[in-house]
């Protein structure tokens, strides 16, 4: 029963990501809501749960896409662990630190995912346009998603 809120949040996040990319993409580029959700969960949740969130959000993107299975799952699990390590040294609750973290981690996760795709499937899934624009979009919207997740945690004890 305790996981119902988490499952609902997971499904709703996936739906929001799908809806945004389906309807709100501009020039083929859209912010990665699942990434922002995974980042926010990694900041707010306990480490084990944060990594579970990272893994399952990654699985969602893997399922939704047609690329290699498990690449996003591994990437976001690693990102969740990285955030777990980072938040012991930096304050990730502030808006500015979230923007910097989102910008950096977004670029790093994209590079990592690109690397995994090249190694395991020998394909190049990300174009340069997305690589140059998406981290900035993610960084701009990350504080809003974090605020929403923080309110959910406070109000419904989710995460």
């Amino acid at each position, binding site marked *: 029963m305790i996981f119902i809120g988490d499952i609902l949040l997971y499904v709703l996040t*996936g739906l929001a990501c*799908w809806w945004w990319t389906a309807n709100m993409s501009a020039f083929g580029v859209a912010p990665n809501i699942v990434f922002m959700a995974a980042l926010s969960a990694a900041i707010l949740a306990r480490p084990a749960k944060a990594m579970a969130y*990272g*893994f399952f959000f990654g*699985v969602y993107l*893997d399922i*939704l896409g047609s690329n290699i*299975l*498990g690449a996003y799952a591994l990437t976001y699990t690693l990102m969740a662990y990285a955030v777990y390590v980072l938040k012991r040294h930096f304050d990730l609750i502030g808006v500015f630190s979230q923007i910097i973290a989102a910008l950096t981690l977004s670029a790093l996760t994209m590079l990592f995912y690109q690397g995994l795709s090249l190694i395991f499937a020998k394909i190049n899934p990300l174009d340069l346009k997305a690589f140059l624009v998406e981290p900035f979009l993610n960084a701009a919207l990350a504080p809003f998603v974090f605020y929403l997740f923080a309110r959910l945690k406070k109000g419904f004890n989710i995460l």
Partner: protein
Amino acid sequence: MNREKDMANYAFVFFVFLSALLLLFPSTRVAQTARIIASYSLYPSLHYGAKYDYYIRNVPENFLNLLKTDQENRALKSKIKELEISVKTARAAEAENQRLTGEMGLSRNLAFRGVWARVINKNPLDWYGSFFINKGAKAGITLNATVIGFETARLGLIGRVFEVYPDFSKVLLITNGASSVIGSVPGANFEGLAEGRGTWLLKVNYIPEGSDIAEGMELITSPSGLLFPPGLPVGRVARVHPKESFMNFITADVAPAISINSLKEVYVIKRDLPADLYGLSEGVKK
């Protein structure tokens, strides 16, 4: 704190292992099963998401369409009401046209000259007593002129002109309590006096005892009456009352040939009455 750190490390290793498993064995049964389960878990949500996205996206347009439809609906309802009124008016006009055509056809076959007049006023307190018509002295209406009416291709006596004004006249109906008509039954050798009673029925008095009067017989104006031309239908015998022990004649109820209730037009017969009948109505009024 160490426990949490351990948990984090275990979780990290566990999920990395799972991810690696998915990456390294993408075509294995485990990986395929995981993908299929995940797909079945996610596709319904995407399906419903797409369904409600369609509705949400079309809300403004649907709302606009709803408003337009509502306006059209109101306009059409208003038009339907107008058309219903038009249809009713047309039906009334058609019925009136048919009625007038029938009446005109009958009046052409009449042996009398006369004037058509429209009933313009009926007094509810004197419904079977009198009414006004829209023709008066200017149209050649004279006192005591016979007034006949038409109903479904038949004519009948209505009454006589009682008061004459320049532009309208008052008609005293045969059903008025002060009105009486000498009537006879065609082919029979008796006469009776049909008197108004202020109701829809006339009462015929002074029918000789032993007369062969029966219900359903038609009563017409008698040639012996000076006021009305002979042969005009007055009504039909509705009921014959048996002779009372103290009277030496029988009586009968007669239903007028023309129903006063549905009367809209009348025909006022112009004919030369005996000179002494011209002052009769004034005498009655006094």
